[in-house]
């Protein structure tokens, strides 16, 4: 009862939660001119409020209860009633905290980073809108409402990636992101139609209850989950729809941080975790998800090795990390997946913001071949970046270690081959991350003189978020201490109620024995360290430098050019589409369809012009014709 009361008290804050960023968006968008740089603070303030609300909810949500209520009927026809509702449970709370928390830090950071940009206020309005849509996505209690956020973040990514709209390359990147997402969204839509048609509703409870009535793994659920997964591919940049993410680096660095860490890409993971029951009921889909994840992870990691743009490297690392998470989900380890989402959010945000700070210092340059030895110029950045790099490489005791290890453990327990592949990919990750790190911060500076003079540490608004994130990147892992350390796995237990429903379908998770776990961790750590050592050997002792683009040849060239995937898509999809469009217009529309119309008209006119000549003007002929006419008509009349 009091439980119920407690919940009802939460309704109001919950429904307000998302509105603050929206408010912020409107304020900054409408009064941006007059606000100047205050806009930045207002925007951040809004996010802070939302953050505190989510924190409040986090603390006050009683026990395992969840808050699920409808605000109003959105679309309602016939028997269908799609209402606008909010669901606050542990899963969404985690996401809320991450989104608002990291979002807030990124806002603060941006104040410093974007300080000199003339689109300052516009930037912050977009950021707020972004957060708003992400919150909608997370707090939705139905797939349709989730879809609002789903498409909304797509839009915001479009706006933000193309933020510097003077540059057409950036615009292309933005457009690419939006369209790629749209492709996924179509899948999502089809999935929704299936659910709406067969389950008669789109809110999670309806869907889940209806689904559970069906036998495990029947083709309906499989197709639904597959369709949804297509959506996830688009949103979370999995093969084959990942290409937009690296290009998304066109946006200002905080945006990249936001997209990669807090919002957007995690949506896919969240969606699958959210519909864990459906997925658990569709083993085939799980297989698909897992393998796509694994493939993406390896693929992206390989490409990452050869990238020389600091942000591009991070981008591919994100793709590969996401692959890792999908693999986890695919193996039914939803909690582990989410755990990695969170930890990854921290260190990836940190990495990007660090990169941003580096770029800031470098005065805009992003090519690591011009950097080097930055450590002594920008201490804080260097230190925080180091932590993040360690974290992502999975070095004990940093956050990445625990989450990654957990996934590896699951993999080891269920699919050995997956385990091997994932270990390889994380080795590669460790390698290219440290390659990046060394090239950037160690040895001596390779840039131009005036860049050298320009080098300086970023303002407090930027370094503070870095430090905060660094703390989390270092310690967040301890939320998910594996059993071997004798701790209770806080994270897993917290999320347990959410994934309760899917347990029965997954069968009991293989609990690996402790010593195997030790073994695994050992292997993982050793592997990581080895690859770090290699990186060190190559890029510090040997002072290797990535060769310039001209020199790269053979396989290396392939890798450096991302296996020419973009070119491939361009050749087999984009170009043909444009050609077809022209063909349709010129050939079918103008030449055939229109010609038919015009031809009929012409024929009529032509007959007119010809038979008109019968009117010779000769009276004799007229009489003759008349007589003939009479005879013919007579004949007709007599014959018929």
């Amino acid at each position, binding site marked *: 009862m009091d439980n119920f009361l407690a919940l009802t008290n939460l309704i109001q804050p919950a429904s307000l939660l998302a509105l603050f960023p929206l408010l912020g968006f409107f304020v900054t968008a409408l009064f941006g001119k007059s606000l100047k740089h205050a806009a930045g603070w207002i925007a951040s303030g809004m996010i802070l409020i939302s953050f505190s609300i989510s924190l409040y909810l986090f603390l006050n949500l009683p026990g395992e209860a969840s808050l699920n209520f409808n605000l109003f009927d959105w679309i309602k026809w016939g028997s269908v009633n799609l209402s606008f509702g909010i669901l606050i449970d542990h899963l969404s709370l985690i996401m809320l905290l991450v989104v608002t928390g990291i979002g807030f830090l990124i806002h603060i950071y941006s104040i410093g980073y974007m300080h000199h940009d003339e689109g300052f206020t516009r930037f912050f309005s977009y950021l707020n809108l972004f957060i708003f849509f992400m919150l909608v996505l997370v707090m939705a209690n139905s797939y349709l409402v989730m879809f609002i956020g789903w498409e909304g973040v797509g839009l915001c990514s479009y706006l933000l990636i193309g933020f510097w709209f003077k540059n057409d390359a950036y615009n292309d990147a933005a457009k690419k992101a939006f369209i790629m997402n749209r492709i996924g969204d179509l899948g999502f839509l089809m999935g929704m139609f299936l659910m709406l048609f067969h389950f008669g509703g789109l809110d999670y409870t309806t869907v889940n209850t209806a689904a559970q009535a069906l036998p495990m793994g029947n083709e309906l659920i499989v197709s639904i989950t597959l369709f949804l997964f297509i959506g996830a591919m688009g949103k979370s940049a999995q093969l084959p729809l990942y290409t937009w993410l690296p290009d998304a680096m066109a946006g200002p660095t905080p945006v990249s941080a936001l997209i990669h860490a807090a919002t957007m890409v995690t949506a896919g993971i969240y969606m699958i975790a959210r519909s864990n029951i459906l997925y658990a009921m569709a083993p085939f889909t799980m297989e698909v998800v897992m393998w796509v994840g694994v493939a993406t992870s390896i693929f992206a990691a390989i490409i990452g090795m050869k990238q020389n743009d600091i942000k591009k490297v991070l981008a591919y690392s994100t793709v590969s990390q996401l692959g890792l998470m999908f693999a986890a989900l695919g193996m039914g380890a939803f909690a582990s997946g989410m755990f990695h989402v969170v930890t990854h959010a921290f260190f990836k945000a940190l990495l990007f913001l660090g990169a941003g700070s580096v770029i800031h210092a470098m005065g805009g340059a992003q090519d690591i071949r011009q950097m080097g030895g930055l450590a002594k110029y920008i201490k804080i950045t260097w230190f925080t970046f180091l932590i993040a790099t360690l974290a992502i490489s999975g070095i004990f005791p940093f956050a990445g270690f625990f989450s990654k290890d957990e996934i590896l453990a699951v993999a080891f327990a269920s699919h050995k081959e997956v385990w091997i592949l994932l270990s390889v990919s994380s080795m590669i990750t460790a390698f290219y991350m440290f390659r990046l790190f060394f090239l950037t911060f160690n040895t001596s500076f390779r840039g131009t003189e005036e860049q050298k003079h320009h080098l300086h540490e970023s303002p407090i608004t930027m370094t503070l978020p870095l430090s905060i994130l660094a703390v989390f990147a270092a310690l967040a892992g301890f939320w998910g201490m594996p059993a071997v350390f004798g701790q209770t796995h806080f994270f897993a237990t917290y999320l347990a109620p959410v994934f309760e429903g899917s347990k029965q379908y997954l069968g009991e998770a293989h609990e690996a024995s402790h010593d195997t776990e030790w073994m695994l961790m050992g292997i993982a750590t050793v592997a990581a360290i080895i690859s770090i050592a290699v990186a060190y050997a190559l890029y510090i002792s040997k002072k290797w430098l990535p060769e310039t683009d001209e020199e790269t040849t053979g396989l290396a060239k392939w890798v450096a050019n991302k296996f020419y995937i973009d070119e491939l898509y361009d050749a087999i999809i984009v170009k043909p589409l444009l050609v077809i469009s022209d063909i349709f217009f010129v050939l079918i529309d103008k030449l055939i369809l229109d010609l038919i119309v015009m031809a009929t008209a012409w024929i009529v006119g032509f007959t007119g012009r010809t038979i008109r000549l019968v009117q010779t*003007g*000769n*009276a*004799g002929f007229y*009489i003759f014709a008349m007589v003939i006419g009479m005879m013919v008509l007579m004949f007709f009349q007599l014959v018929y």
Partner: protein
Amino acid sequence: MNTAIEQANPQNWYLLLSTVLFSIGVMGVLMRRNALIILMCVELMLNSVNLLLVSFSAYAGNTDGQVFVFFIMVVAAAEVAVGLALLVSIYRNIGTTDIDVLSKLKW
């Protein structure tokens, strides 16, 4: 019409005759190019009709036919008058009565 002819009674011969006259008239109109002659051919056609009417009215035993004939004559006269008048004015303007020349208005 042949059937009509077989169908007995003498006045079929009148019928036949007038038909022939009529046809001759038509032919004349078709063949000849001189407006005057064509005019006459038309007259011929009308007169064949007169003949027919008279014979019929005799056969039917009432005088309507004859009366009608008078009307026709009057009208024919009027027609000819008008026709000739037009012909004259045409002749004035283009100096010929060949109807083939009259083809300014066409198409």
